């Protein structure tokens, strides 16, 4: 859940979305930035093959009751973006995800009440695309529209080692859409 809600795009200056020219990757950012972009394409791949270090402490009615640790975690994501610019209007198309990864897997394990053990195995696959357009009103002001659409398949297996052992499986498929409107302005001063 946690990485889904973070801005996962790996833009190096902190994941800025409203300003800062990222070339063709502006197709997933503020759509008004498209008017500042040359016709171009870009591809980026990013991922994390390792993310151990989680630790959780359960407390039931104020008493310590268990722990949890991440045994392995892998994420992989990609972005393929195109921008076509003319004098006033620019279009962007990007195959990328908003706040998510194309592939994600996480294995964790722990104990309840110091005795019952459990293990979780989570996996998700997702694909998404952005379609955006920007319009240059003047040399300093531009506006834009962006539409995002994605499909995600999440699977989770929870196994409890009790007597008898049991496995709970959940599979959630979701279709997501998100519209956005953008504005960009330059402020200038005259210098003699």
């Amino acid at each position: 859940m946690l990485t889904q809600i973070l801005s996962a795009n790996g833009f190096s200056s902190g994941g800025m979305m409203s300003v800062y020219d990222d070339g063709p990757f502006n197709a997933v950012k503020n759509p008004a930035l498209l008017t500042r972009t040359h016709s171009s394409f870009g591809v980026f791949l990013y991922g994390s093959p390792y993310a151990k270090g989680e630790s959780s402490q359960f407390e039931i009615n104020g008493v310590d009751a268990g722990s949890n640790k991440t045994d392995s975690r892998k994420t992989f994501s990609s972005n393929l973006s195109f921008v076509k610019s003319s004098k006033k209007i620019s279009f962007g198309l990007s195959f990328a995800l908003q706040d998510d990864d194309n592939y994600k897997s996480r294995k964790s394990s722990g104990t309840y009440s110091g005795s019952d053990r459990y293990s979780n195995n989570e996996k998700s696959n997702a694909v998404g695309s952005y379609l955006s357009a920007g319009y240059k009103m003047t040399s300093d002001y531009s506006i834009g529209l962006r539409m995002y659409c994605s499909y995600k398949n999440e699977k989770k297996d929870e196994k409890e080692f009790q007597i008898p052992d049991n496995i709970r499986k959940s599979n959630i498929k979701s279709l997501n859409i998100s519209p956005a409107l953008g504005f960009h302005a330059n402020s200038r001063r005259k210098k003699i």
Partner: protein
Amino acid sequence: MQIAEEKKYEIGIILSGGTFAKKKYDYSYYESDSVNGKNSSSSGFEMTKSPSITLGVLKRYKKSSLIAETAIYIPTKHDDKTYSINISNGDIMIEDIKRSNSFRFEQKLGYEYSFSTSSAFSCGLGYLQIRQKEDFSTLSESNRNNIDVRAFIFSMGFDKKISPRTKFIVASSNYVIFNKLELKSDALSIKIKSYEFIPNIMFAVIQKF
């Protein structure tokens, strides 16, 4: 005397209408002594991420740029589903949850320094906080979850133009996440605290037409 116009700063605004999701849920339960069950459900389009306003300001200096960005999310409520299992016969009950995104705030700071016309270094710091409430309204007893997530993001990257039309970027974006979850019902109170460190590495190529 010559008059030239110099860029003072740039302003960017994004108004997001939120994220709407349509979901299909499949649940199953298996026990080693052969008790098992299955159940499915689906939902219409529900708002799962709140509408937001993102405001960014960029100030350019001779060789460097400084950027600040703030995102504020409007609190919203939406319906979701969860499940519970009757372990005596394996029956799965799908239950409605009301989730409310009570607070979400993001603050980012970025800096870029150009060594030359063909190479630059950039780095960023980010802070994110989310509070969410879950209300299991269909259950007979009062049952609520409170989720509080705080994340710190540190990123850095290096850009290199390998020709006038081609640029190569290597970057790393790392998260430290602190998560606090409180589940409260009439008889039980469960608290979970966790932290997680997630490193990411990115390779990018940009080609102008």
